[in-house]
């Protein structure tokens, strides 16, 4: 049995879902997006881009809430988010 109370208005709350777009060749591998993604959507990939940096990769796409923090933090304009609709909220989601 879950110890978390279910909010009474959970049916009304919609959670946005985002899709991450990465321009790998623009990335300089600073790691800001990975460090500051609140939901751990991104991780460093093993591949190299043409400049020799490791661009980020999306490891848990379903977790992206389209907050776009990666988009505004990226100093190289290499990553952005598009809103992919909303889903119903669920506990622990």
């Amino acid at each position, binding site marked *: 049995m879950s110890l978390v109370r279910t909010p009474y208005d959970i049916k009304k709350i919609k959670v946005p879902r985002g899709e991450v*777009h990465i*321009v790998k060749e623009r990335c300089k591998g600073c790691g800001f997006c990975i*460090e500051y993604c609140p939901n751990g959507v991104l991780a460093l990939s093993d591949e190299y881009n043409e400049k020799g940096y490791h661009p980020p990769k999306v490891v848990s796409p379903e977790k992206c809430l389209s907050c776009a923090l990666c988009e505004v933090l990226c*100093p190289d304009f290499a990553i*952005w988010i598009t*809103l992919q609709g909303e889903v119903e909220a669920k506990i622990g989601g």
Partner: protein
Amino acid sequence: MNTLESMTKQDGHPIEPLLRMDRIPHIWCPGCGIGTTLNAFVAAVNKLDVDRDKLCVVSGIGCTGRVAGYIKLDSFHVLHGRAIPFATGIKLSHPELNVVVFSGDGDLVSIGGNHFLHAARRNINLTVILVNNFIYAMTGGQVAPTTPVTAYTTTSPFGNFEPPSNIPQLAEAAGAVYVARWTALHIRRLTKSIVEAFRKPGFAVVEVVSPCSMYYSRLNRMGEGIDMMKFYHKNSVIKHGEPTENLDIKFQKQIIVGKFVDRERPAILGSSGGPDAEAEP
């Protein structure tokens, strides 16, 4: 960010319409905060819904000076230290234009310090975005008037001994009407501050503490850009309205950020292109 508009756009980064994409990738090093600051500025421009043909950006020399080259507005990359007087000239001859000065600490406070003082004294209606990375990075890491005491640079190879400028205090003492400081990490608040500064009639200064991942961090063994960001995350404290004399930045110590000054003074060409702009220059 103008959420809905940018979110439905699929075919490129939402910043792209405001950048000269043929010049990207830019020259800034991996982990540099200037790109992030530019992001915040573009987000603010989108939020402001201002006529982009009436918006000018003036930059001086240095890493931050390159902003003028990347942003797709009427932009001027002028002489070292002369961004503010150049912008003053634009504003006085065309009061309907909104002029933003986007430059670095060395450019605006060291060689351009006098122009900074006098523009604040006159309270000329400019928005100044001052990226402070504690060092002259474009020339290879020399000591700047913002370098904290004991920090190493190539021209202070045994540690800096001169107390640095406290930029918010300087701006306030000289007469600026809006003064805020954020780090490159406080991206949303920074965007909001730029919007406020832009709407403020008069000389408005937003200082952005930004990581220099190549010189300042390397010479002082602070790791990479991301490590400096983590440091800002841990050590910056938001204190709105803090008296500006408490805002000195000490080496690897707490950084106080926030909005410190928001006041009224008679401004030259007071409004941002509004009806008052009709006033005689």
